[in-house]
């Protein structure tokens, strides 16, 4: 049994979906930060429009991650030796969301200072909560994937076309 294709597909889909949560919720609905809002403060129409372009590029990239995940999941579904475990796949998605928060948080919020969770506060407790949520998602996803090991041992039912 080879779980890697399913875990990799779930992880990159989780990264993409986590990116969409950040982009849609924080950038667009709440508007508490934008991709380059620490560099280009959205205080004028021109700046708002400019940051919107970089938010667009961010969303393009999250879309690409999700699309790659769908393609990888499709490929994994066709492989006979890949166990079709929901716990493994959704665990990988949760872990992927955690990876998104940790990597994006460390690089963009703390190292490059491109933006912060609540831009008007700069580096704040919310940035650490963002990282903490990422670590929590990683642990949760890891434990779900671990539980998914049982699925392959107990002959977890495969989709009809693979039987």
């Amino acid at each position, binding site marked *: 049994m080879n779980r890697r294709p399913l875990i990799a597909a779930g*992880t*990159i889909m989780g990264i993409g979906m986590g990116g969409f949560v950040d982009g849609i919720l924080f950038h667009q609905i709440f508007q508490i930060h934008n991709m380059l809002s620490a560099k280009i403060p959205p205080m004028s129409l021109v700046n708002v*429009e*400019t940051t919107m372009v970089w938010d667009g590029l*961010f969303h393009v990239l999250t879309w690409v991650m999700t699309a790659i995940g769908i393609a990888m999941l499709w490929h994994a579904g066709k492989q006979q030796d890949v166990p079709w475990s929901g716990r493994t796949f959704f665990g990988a998605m949760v872990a992927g969301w955690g990876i998104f928060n940790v990597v994006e948080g460390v690089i963009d919020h703390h190292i*490059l200072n491109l933006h912060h969770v609540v831009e008007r506060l700069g580096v704040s407790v919310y940035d650490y909560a963002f990282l903490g949520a990422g670590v929590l998602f990683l642990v949760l996803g890891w434990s779900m994937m671990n539980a998914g090991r049982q699925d392959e041992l107990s002959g977890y039912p495969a989709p009809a076309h693979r039987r």
Partner: protein
Amino acid sequence: MKVLLVFWVAMLAPFSASACPLCHTATGDKVRAAVLGPDFWFNVGVTVLPFAVFLGITALIYYGIPTRELRGDSSARTNPVKEETT
């Protein structure tokens, strides 16, 4: 109520459209200049950077961590220890 909503959308649309980065208006020109400024490639790079890391992590999960043996490095294999003859 619907008439009012349509009215407000119609009133707002020309204003927002005139600021689009592709529009040949004063605001559109400024937005285009700001996006395509001297730090354009820097901004592209820093936006792409985390995603390059994500792809690397996914590749590591899919292919596994490359070990010396997988790379064909024979020195990584343990050589049989020669027995000392006395």
